[in-house]
């Protein structure tokens, strides 16, 4: 495997708040990296830093293959305007808007790519529906199809399963698996310990001013989750001994 992005000695935060210090990590092609942490630990800031929207306090980012023409990005849905008058197929085509040029529209190959992405996300019959008629799960599928159109070597997904049902989550996870097999690097921000972690090769745990990364099994130890402020001691005791222990132990 080769690194899409090398991060060295990264300290991330704001002038009056340091989120974490001295993170060095390679984001490899063909891997899925889960980013986990409590609220305010810096998960979304880490994603914004990867996009170039905020600058790190110190450290270095190196793109061994050159900075990609596009970084696939799926933000949290909070700022998305669902009443905007646009059809599903046009939303998906947005993924390739920078390649359109000023005057020309999507060519035949582009339209075929849009149709294929809609098909793969199981929303082709909704292609001509306006956005406001979609359910939360259908909209998330459409946004995944837009990420497909971006055709990016690095894909950042910020809490993509926050508002979708279990069957949609399962289907979207299978799409992430396919991206990984295609050799793309996927960074997946998740907010809870769930089966989603079964689909990740590595995890980056943020919190307590530190960033810890490694294989899922090695990072998600109860004492580390408590030390980095992700779980309280009583929560850790319940989760690792209680009814949900079987699932959690798979990751710890």
């Amino acid at each position: 495997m080769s690194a899409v992005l090398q991060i060295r000695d990264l300290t991330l935060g704001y002038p009056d708040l340091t989120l974490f210090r001295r993170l060095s990590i390679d984001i490899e092609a063909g891997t899925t990296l889960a980013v986990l942490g409590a609220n305010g630990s810096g998960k979304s800031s880490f994603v914004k830093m990867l996009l170039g929207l905020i600058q790190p306090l110190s450290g270095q980012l190196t793109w061994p293959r050159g900075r990609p023409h596009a970084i696939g990005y799926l933000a949290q849905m909070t700022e998305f305007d669902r009443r905007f008058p646009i059809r599903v197929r046009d939303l998906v085509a947005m993924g390739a808007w920078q390649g359109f040029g000023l005057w020309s529209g999507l060519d035949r190959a582009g339209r075929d790519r849009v149709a294929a992405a809609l098909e793969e996300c199981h929303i082709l019959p909704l292609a001509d529906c306006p956005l406001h008629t979609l359910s939360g799960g259908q909209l998330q599928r459409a946004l995944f199809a837009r990420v497909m159109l971006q055709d990016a070597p690095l894909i950042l997904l910020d809490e993509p399963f926050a508002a979708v049902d279990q069957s949609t989550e399962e289907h979207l996870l299978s799409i992430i698996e396919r991206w990984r097999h295609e050799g793309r690097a996927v960074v997946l921000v998740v907010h809870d310990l769930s089966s989603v972690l079964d689909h990740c090769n590595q995890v980056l745990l943020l919190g307590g001013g530190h960033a810890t990364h490694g294989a899922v099994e090695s990072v998600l130890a109860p004492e580390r989750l408590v030390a980095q402020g992700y779980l309280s001691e009583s929560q850790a005791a319940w989760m690792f001994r209680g009814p949900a222990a079987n699932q959690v132990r798979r990751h710890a």
Partner: protein
Amino acid sequence: MLELFTEMWSFAFMRRAFVATTVLSVSVTPVGAFLVLRRLSLAGEAMAHAITPGVVIGFVMAGLSVTWLLVGGLIAGIGVASLAALLAARTILRGDASLASLYLVALAASIFILSAAGSVVPLESFLFGSILGIDDPSLMLLGGVATVTLVSFAVMLRPLIVSTCDPVFFESQTRRPWVIEQGFMLLLVLNLLAAFKTLGTLMAVGLMILPATAARYWASTVTGQLALGFVFALLSCWIGLTLSYLLPETPSGPSIVLVAGGLFLISVLFGPLGFGARLRSRSRAGVEDEPVPYTHPFGKSP
């Protein structure tokens, strides 16, 4: 009736007014559509007031000069917008409160200056416009602004659509997202200035917002929104001007905006995305949650 229209057309100032408002409809339609879509409808109204001090100072210094109107209005508009953005970024106030505070001061200052200077031009013509004020330089200004607006929208349309629909995604995909935002605000100020003589400061934004909000009840695509918004704006201007001629002593601005208001009301009641849709869906009990099939407002794919 026919004689009345013949008589109306015999007046040069009425012919000018019809030409001016037709050009204005072309120009303000895309600006109004994106004001509504970007949730800036009230900010548009605030900016209409914010340009007034510049216009008034220009008038006091050089009379009804289009150049001074343009320069004064641009300085005032950009000044207020920049100051509001600065206050929102560096202080506790949010953008809407900053802009509201500044435009109220701007409006009061302009009325104060106009009165203190002992203007011979009645205040109403500043606030509500006057079709008699449309001279050759005003028409040139309208044509120039319409040209700049249409060319700018041809270039900016796609990034503007992406940034309006999903601003976070847009910000992640471009290095200078502020270019689109600031470019759009500049077009807004230019169009407010272009509409100033015909509609006045209070009514100028009405021709932008009302046709756009009315069109929103019918259109499910940006193309439909723009096309229908233009039709509504044009109808408002032509019918409004005719009413203003038929009823002497009524200013053109409120007449035009009232007609636009009528079209808005009809759209609320009968548009497929207004109350009309709710009435229809009630009659189809049990299927309200199904996605509504897409229908283009003009019966074809755009």
